[in-house]
């Protein structure tokens, strides 16, 4: 029986498979298909201090092996989350990571300060990389000083697991991972979506109301894998790999490149039971290949 567990800071994940923020809401709907008790954890839809309505339609466009989204961080806000969403989530035996998105460093800190008192919450993922909002989001994600300030500020108000979700829309992602590490962040998630767009040639208008959106799905996996590898080769910080995972082999690739855990994103839309099923497939791979402890594979890629 292979040990699939992963420990980051003081949080033990029973396996490395987490559900990515923005692809599973607050767990209400996905739990009809995926047994949350069998996965490593769930990362909530981004929370902001106040509710956000999100962008007008069209918010979604399918692309070759991927999709663009420009949801605009539609979310219920911290207060409503605590009242109606967290009690349900807390009923599952899994790790709950709250993703936080904000339009100022102060708002990130305030959200974290409020949520950190909840014992059901195991950690935070700070979203400095949403490409679909005007205020905040990527404006922070491609600014080293902003990421430094936000990481330090949030670190000061929580002792819980602190993950910063990094943008691929930067020249050197490892520089950002280093800043997170220096400011006391416990891990980085890599990557958020890539900025993309799509144009309707009949109307000559962008298909997305927001003009640009975030590209996700199998199309971005090679990019995500390269970013994980870049971070692993340059910074000592646990990495949560995200980007286009659509089969169990992808997960092994991410782990070999340097990921401790991974997140399943777009695939939840297509096969909402994928995360639960893929855990069993990874276990099968480990047993067939005599791998007693999965996390020994982290970073085990054989580089030239």
């Amino acid at each position, binding site marked *: 029986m292979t040990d699939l567990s992963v420990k980051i800071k003081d949080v033990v994940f029973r396996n490395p498979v987490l559900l990515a923020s*923005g*692809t*599973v*809401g607050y767990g*209400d*709907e*996905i739990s*009809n*298909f995926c047994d949350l008790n069998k996965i490593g954890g769930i990362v909530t*839809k981004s929370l902001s201090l106040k*509710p956000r*309505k*999100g*962008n*007008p*339609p*069209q*918010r*979604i*466009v*399918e692309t070759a*092996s*991927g*999709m663009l*989204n420009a*949801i605009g961080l*539609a979310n219920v806000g911290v207060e409503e989350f605590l009242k109606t969403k967290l009690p349900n989530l807390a009923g599952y035996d899994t790790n709950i990571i709250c993703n936080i998105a904000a339009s100022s460093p102060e708002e990130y800190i305030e959200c974290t300060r409020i949520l950190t008192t909840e014992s059901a919450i195991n950690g935070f993922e700070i979203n400095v990389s949403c490409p679909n909002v005007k205020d905040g989001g990527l404006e922070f994600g491609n600014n080293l000083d902003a990421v430094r300030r936000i990481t330090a500020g949030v670190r000061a108000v929580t002792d819980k697991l602190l993950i910063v979700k990094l943008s691929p829309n930067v020249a050197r992602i490892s520089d950002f991972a280093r800043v997170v590490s220096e400011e006391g962040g416990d891990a980085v998630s890599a990557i958020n979506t890539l900025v993309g767009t799509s144009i309707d040639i009949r109307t000559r208008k962008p298909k997305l109301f927001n003009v640009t959106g975030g590209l996700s*799905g*199998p199309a971005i996996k090679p990019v995500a894998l390269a970013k994980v590898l870049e971070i692993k080769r340059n910074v000592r910080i646990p990495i949560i790999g995200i980007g286009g995972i*659509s089969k169990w082999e992808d997960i092994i690739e991410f782990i070999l490149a340097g990921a401790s855990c991974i997140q399943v994103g*777009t695939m*939840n*839309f*297509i*096969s*909402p*039971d994928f995360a639960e099923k893929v855990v069993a497939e990874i276990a099968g791979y480990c047993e067939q290949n005599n791998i007693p402890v999965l996390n020994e594979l982290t970073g085990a890629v054989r580089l030239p």
Partner: protein
Amino acid sequence: MRIEKTQIVSVSEVQSGIFILTVESEYFAAATLPGQFFNIRVSESLFPLLRRPFSISDLTGKNLSFMFDVHGEGTKILSQKRAGEWLDIIGPLGHGFGIEGEYESAIIVAGGLGVAPFPYLTKKIRNKKKIYSFIGARSSRHLVTQGIVNVYSATDDGTTGYYGNVVDLLKLKISEIPGIKKIFSCGPTPMLKSLTDWVNFVGIESEVSLECAMACGFGICQGCPAELHDGSGYKLVCKDGPVFNSQEIIIS
């Protein structure tokens, strides 16, 4: 709501370019109401990546039918499926039409393939309510009336029925329809907009089934917003709809 591998019973081209695909599922057949929809994975590969949503068109015994025209890669693949093949389907999804109630006359208003949900609705209410079906299309060969009763047709080119749009035809005929009325509609956005502007003005109870690009179909991607009249934000077409009261949402 669940994921099921269902077996295809038949795929037939009922008229030029318009297909009906039928699958067999005991659970889906027992659980599905008119106006609900299913998100179908058209290929076992990841091309195309996303599922395709289709409203339930008809339901007989254990057999569920979906109506579609070929307008892209997904529907092209579906049209080429054969009986005996398996199809991965999530459903039933969303809220269907409110078919119960005090109304005496059910008025169906459909444009183009917007007719898709109405054979099943017709089957469910035809013994209880008087039905008037206003069906519009570009031309006679695009007009689908299979499973529809008491049809008033309209075509853009006048090749059959009323020469003009189906909402204008309804306005001409409305005074002939007796009793308390309720409108059930589905079709292109301009048609739904003109219909709801009018019914909200004259005060006929009306439900509208919306279409929207979506990824998941059950609320997790947040990709399909429908804007609320009261200014409070959005509901989701997939989870809160696809059927809405026409007073509740803004069609634009």
